[in-house]
């Protein structure tokens, strides 16, 4: 069995109550913090823990928080991100349905660390049932004195409001999310330092819900303990891995950071479906590249994947079998990204539909040999886009060309999709 820290209170059918959360040590970290720890103590513990962002970018959490200057103006804000629209990713939904107070305590601790007054819990419309769980449990936390004015009798006051989104992938990007909360069209912003001037031009940190949920565990058990939960030296903590596609037991599992994909597939997810053989997997949501089976034994952590030229993303693994046309799958992905592009900058708005057109024609059997170098060139140009969306969208295209070029070429030779 794997050690369960985030999912300690996981049970079928309902989230843990406040009483259940507290029985396992819940809100102890907050109690200790407001009584005897300084914001710097929190940030130091996070530094020791090695915790990095679980939402896709993998930025060290302590560094993000330490960017908020001591003398920065007030009010300051925390954004808790449960937009989670990266295909293959559903960990935050499971997390909120497992232990909402773990996430809530994490948000309050983040508020304490940057001396914030308010947090926005940003959540997508398809997760409305989860938004209602959070709202209900926020009220429970308020009544128990963990939230609101003078938390646990201290001089720290902080509250959390749920902000409902109305869809669109790009809202999960931190700067776009802040625009969305302000009721502006959610285009990502460049050259803004959110820790100086974010929401309403005030210091703001935005963290993924899973990242925030790790914080109470770090404070309660120590940074070294958290770091030691990982399988690898390069990893830290446990991770909520999602696995979906042609596997026996798709789901969201808490596993040590750095566990190899082979173990997740064979031991945790029950292997491939009967009749299916592994052809490729995407390691961390749709904006990471396809990887062929030769990478099965690479440790699934940020640095280990980087060393083999890949991105960890959200840790949401998508498994494809031998009957899946990788060109067809890429067509699906790029259709998705072309539609979800916010349309603000030209490389993304114009480039993705161009890539889509080439892939569609290849899939239709109307492709030509020179489409391959053109696709490669266009996918490369996505790095020139304004934000990280387009480079992410290009990742599966690049992966397809790197590992499955022969299959793409087969569409040109046969003048049709060889899988149809």
């Amino acid at each position: 069995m794997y050690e369960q820290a985030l999912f300690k209170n996981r049970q079928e059918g309902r989230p843990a109550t406040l009483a259940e959360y507290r029985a396992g040590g819940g809100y102890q970290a907050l109690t200790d913090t407001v009584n005897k720890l300084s914001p710097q103590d929190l940030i130091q513990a996070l530094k020791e823990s090695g915790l990095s962002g679980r939402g896709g970018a993998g930025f060290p959490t302590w560094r993000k928080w330490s960017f908020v200057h001591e003398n920065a103006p007030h009010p300051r804000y925390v954004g808790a991100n449960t937009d989670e629209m990266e295909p293959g990713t559903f960990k935050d939904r499971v997390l909120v349905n497992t232990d909402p107070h773990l996430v809530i305590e994490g948000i309050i601790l983040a508020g304490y660390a940057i001396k914030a007054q308010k947090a926005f819990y940003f959540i997508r419309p398809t997760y409305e049932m989860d938004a209602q769980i959070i709202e209900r449990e926020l009220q429970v936390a308020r009544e128990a004195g963990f939230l609101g004015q003078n938390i646990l009798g201290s001089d720290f006051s902080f509250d959390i409001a749920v902000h409902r989104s109305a869809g669109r992938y790009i809202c999960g990007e931190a700067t776009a999310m802040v625009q969305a909360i302000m009721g502006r069209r959610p285009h990502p912003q460049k050259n803004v330092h959110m820790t100086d001037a974010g929401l309403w031009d005030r210091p703001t940190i935005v963290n993924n819900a899973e990242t925030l949920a790790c914080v109470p565990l770090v404070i309660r058990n120590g940074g070294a303990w958290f770091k030691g939960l990982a399988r690898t030296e390069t990893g830290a903590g446990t991770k909520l891995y999602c696995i979906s596609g042609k596997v026996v037991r798709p789901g969201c599992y808490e596993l040590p950071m750095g566990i190899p994909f082979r173990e997740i597939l064979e031991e945790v997810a029950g292997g491939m479906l009967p009749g299916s053989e592994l052809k490729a997997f995407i390691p961390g949501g749709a904006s990471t590249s396809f990887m062929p089976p030769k990478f099965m034994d690479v440790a699934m952590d940020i640095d280990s994947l980087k060393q083999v030229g890949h991105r960890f993303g959200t840790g949401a693994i998508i498994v494809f079998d031998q009957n899946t046309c990788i060109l067809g799958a890429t067509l699906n992905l790029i259709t998705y990204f072309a539609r979800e592009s916010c349309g603000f900058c030209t490389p993304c708005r114009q480039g993705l539909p161009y890539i889509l057109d080439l892939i569609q024609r290849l899939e239709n059997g109307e492709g030509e040999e020179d489409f391959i170098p053109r696709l490669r060139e266009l996918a490369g140009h996505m790095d020139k886009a304004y934000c990280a969306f387009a480079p992410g969208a290009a990742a599966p295209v690049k992966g397809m060309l790197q590992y499955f070029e022969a299959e793409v070429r087969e569409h040109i030779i046969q003048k049709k999709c060889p899988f149809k």
Partner: protein
Amino acid sequence: MIPEPLREKLKSQINQAENPREQAVNVMYEIQRHYGYLTDEGLQEAAAMVGATPLELEELATFYDFIYREPVGRFVLHVCDGVVCWMFHEGSLFDYMCRKLGVCAGEVSADGMFTVLPTACIGYCDQAPAMVVNGRFFGHLTPALIDEILEQLKTETCDLVLCR
């Protein structure tokens, strides 16, 4: 003019926020809940209430996929078109629903009951293929199950979780 009770409800909602603009999406949701979609008149009034120009609010309304600027059916079938759902049906379930209901994407079925829309990954990849209908999830979809769900929905009242 939007009805007075709705206006009062919106005003009190806006008053609770630090800044009226924060409530833009919620106000649009409420108007949509009342009329079934965001009407032109509703958009104009909502804009004034949150301190935006109608154009600014239109920019938001047309950006988000859960705000409807045209009438939709009582039930909106948001069919996930994420890659995991795709690998199980390659778009055929979407086509099946459209054929069965005699509609194209975004149109309302003749009985006024249903609209089918492709929707960005709904986060139910472990139960692919999946859809969300008026806030309720349905997974492991097959044509037979879809038939069953549509029949069932026809007999139900339209309780909205947040939006269609």
